């Protein structure tokens, strides 16, 4: 059997997905036996123009991480889609926009104004802003155009599979790679993880359907070690987040922040969490309920920490 051809690419991301891919450790050798990596800008010396020269669909699978924040990333997403039989959104940024997607609460102008004009340490009396194309004495310099909003990979090109997580845990990465190597991929559109149900399913903390009267910030209390964090009043998103990660954060005494995205069958993770939260609040009095939820300082940033661009909200409407 001929070896698979795999491409790996990064767009608007942090590099954590590359580290996560390396975390599979000695399984990298199995991957190397089964597949040739034909494009991986961080690791091998293959250029954009080399990819352009490849015939359409000549790459078996592309693992694409990072969101679409600028013109170069959009161009690369479209090109790699044409060249690849299978397109995999790897990691939360490509899947749902992730933390950089919180930028959709603002627009380009607001971001530029803050970074280049208003930041406390910025010294910019001439109000210089970066330009996509700028003429220096020696010639024209270009940088990619920064878009007004962050888009997910699915909003840019057709995507076949999703590997969730910020970054995906080692076992999730391998689950996807193994399926690819063995030719046992699930139906198109599948979000690949060990558990389509909630993180709570993975979590060893005990739930006894206790209801809460107060919501705490994580610095305000030292949680009991074995009891569900949500039932202790911490905003743990595990209840509305896809499992398969093994619940490492609650086991380190910190609430799940939702990086594996919504559970199977749910479109909007934030709305799902909101309804789950409503069911654990111990009150029927509208006034009291309002007081309790008023202690949540940032609902959008907390419930949609990773999924804003992919949610029904998409972002803030800015006039």
């Amino acid at each position, binding site marked *: 059997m001929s070896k698979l051809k795999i491409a790996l690419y990064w767009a608007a991301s942090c590099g954590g997905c590359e580290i996560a891919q390396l975390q599979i450790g000695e399984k990298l050798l199995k991957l190397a036996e089964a597949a040739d990596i034909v494009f991986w800008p961080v690791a091998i010396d293959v250029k954009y123009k080399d990819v352009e020269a490849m015939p359409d669909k000549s790459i078996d699978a592309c693992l694409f991480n990072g969101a679409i924040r600028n013109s170069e990333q959009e161009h690369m997403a479209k090109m790699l889609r044409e060249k690849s039989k299978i397109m995999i959104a790897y990691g939360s940024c490509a899947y749902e926009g992730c933390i950089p997607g919180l930028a959709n609460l603002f627009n380009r102008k607001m971001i530029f104004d803050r970074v280049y004009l208003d930041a406390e340490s910025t010294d910019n009396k001439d109000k210089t802003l970066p330009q996509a194309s700028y003429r*220096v004495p*020696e010639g024209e310099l270009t940088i990619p155009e920064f878009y007004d909003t962050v888009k997910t990979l699915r909003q840019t090109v057709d995507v076949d599979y999703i590997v969730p997580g910020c970054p995906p845990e080692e076992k999730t990465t391998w689950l996807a790679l193994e399926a690819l190597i063995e030719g046992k991929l699930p139906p198109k559109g599948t979000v690949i993880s060990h558990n389509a149900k909630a993180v709570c399913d993975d979590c060893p903390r005990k739930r006894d359907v206790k209801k809460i009267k107060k919501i705490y910030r*994580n610095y305000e209390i030292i949680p009991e070690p074995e009891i569900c964090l949500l039932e202790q009043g911490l905003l743990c998103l595990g209840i509305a987040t896809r499992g398969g990660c093994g619940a490492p954060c609650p086991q380190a005494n910190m609430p799940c922040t939702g990086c594996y995205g919504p559970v199977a069958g749910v479109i909007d993770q934030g709305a799902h969490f909101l309804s789950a939260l409503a069911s654990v609040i111990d009150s029927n009095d509208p006034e009291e309920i309002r007081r309790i939820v008023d202690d949540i300082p940032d609902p959008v940033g907390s419930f949609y920490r990773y999924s804003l661009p992919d949610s029904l909200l998409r972002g803030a409407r800015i006039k």
Partner: protein
Amino acid sequence: MKRITIDPITRLEGHGKIEIFLDDAGGVRNTYFQVPELRGFEKFSEGRPAEEMPQITQRICGVCPEAHHLASTKALDALFHVEPTSVAKKLRELLYSAFYITDHTTNFYILAGPDFVMGPDAPVSERNILGVIGKVGLELGGKVIKTRMQNHRIIHMLGGRAVHPVFGLPGGVSKVLREEERREIEQIAKESVEFARLSLKVFNDIVLKNKEYVDMIVSDVYTHRTYYMGLVDANNKVNFYDGMVRVISPDGKEFAKYAPSEYLEHIAEHVEPWTYVKFPFLKKVGWKGFVDGDDSGIFRVAPLARLNVADGMATPLAQEAYEEMYTALGSKPVHHTLAMHWARLIELIYAAERLLELSQDPEIINPNIRTIPTAIPDEGIGIVEAPRGTLIHHYVTDERGVIKKANLIVATVNNAAAVNMSIKKAAMALIKPGKEITEGLLNRIEMAWRPYDLCLACASHTLFGTSPLPIEVYNSEGQVIKKYT
């Protein structure tokens, strides 16, 4: 006018690009180092609860999330006016020392090392980690991999996750260390100290005993007289986690020493229209363009800068190595950019020795890991030394602790102006009219930025080899006349 485009270079935060403009005769007229990406964390942090910032801001970089996580956590200590417990401070520094070991190891063996171990003109196919392992032997190669894995295990143990840890809270950390874990860390630390000493010996044998390399290190091509900045402890020794920021002038005199809360008196950032990165400079000296010297506010950060601003190292083996370097190079500060690699190995020894000290401290298994904040939050600044230099997080909140303003000066960015200068100087010295532009020559230009270990210098890059460097030479009409692959 001809131009050479190096796009993309990698191993920085996102992507990078170098433009080299030639004059009609074929000499270098000017160069530009461009960062073509921005994500805007300073803006979208607004509205977020402050305590979420250690987890939000570490998504700036998945290679050094620990640095952002801790700078942010320290900013929260200041913001909430809370003193972390002594155990918590030690656990933070312990995790950070383990992180430094992984990061510096990666840079030396995988990113920068190949240039020296294999030689700058070695074939591209050999100038990589596999070539290095072939030369230094499988045994040492195995130790490189083992050291990285073991220290990642420490990060996972304390931080809950190997990438993007979840342990920083204002006033402390989230997880108690167990005695059996402490013992495991102690063992890893002992092995790491031996590994670090061995690494310095490799550098000695391969680099310092080779006159050609030493001449290259001290050559003018890779030298800039600049200011330096870095954290020091109460005894003016190098510290990664805490202390005062010290700045020295190009002639080695203390120019400033300031607490994190005073950073705005000392640093300002210049904006250029052709790149998304800003250029920090010393406010009291001023921005004079991309030039070095006493009158230019450009300063440098990262390993060599930290050693230059300090009076020494806080652990014995590192101190010995520190003295050896300054004796060998004959002056302090050292202005030779390539000596940054040497300084990094001295820091590797320090990180391992510090990890061992902390792992043997009986207090670290004490469960008193948190002080609950009670004061009203307002404003906080946190500074740590990231492997790539001084890293500053500055937050202002409302009385509920919701971010109103966030300002971030990221380690690599502090060196952005210096990187521009270093590339220009190397290009001007190496590209001459009539001289063929070979891959090896362009690699020597790359060697001018590689010591800065531009962020995203992660293990991943180089498992298989080299930095991708498509280089295209343009004529004055913008047509590609030659391609280098």
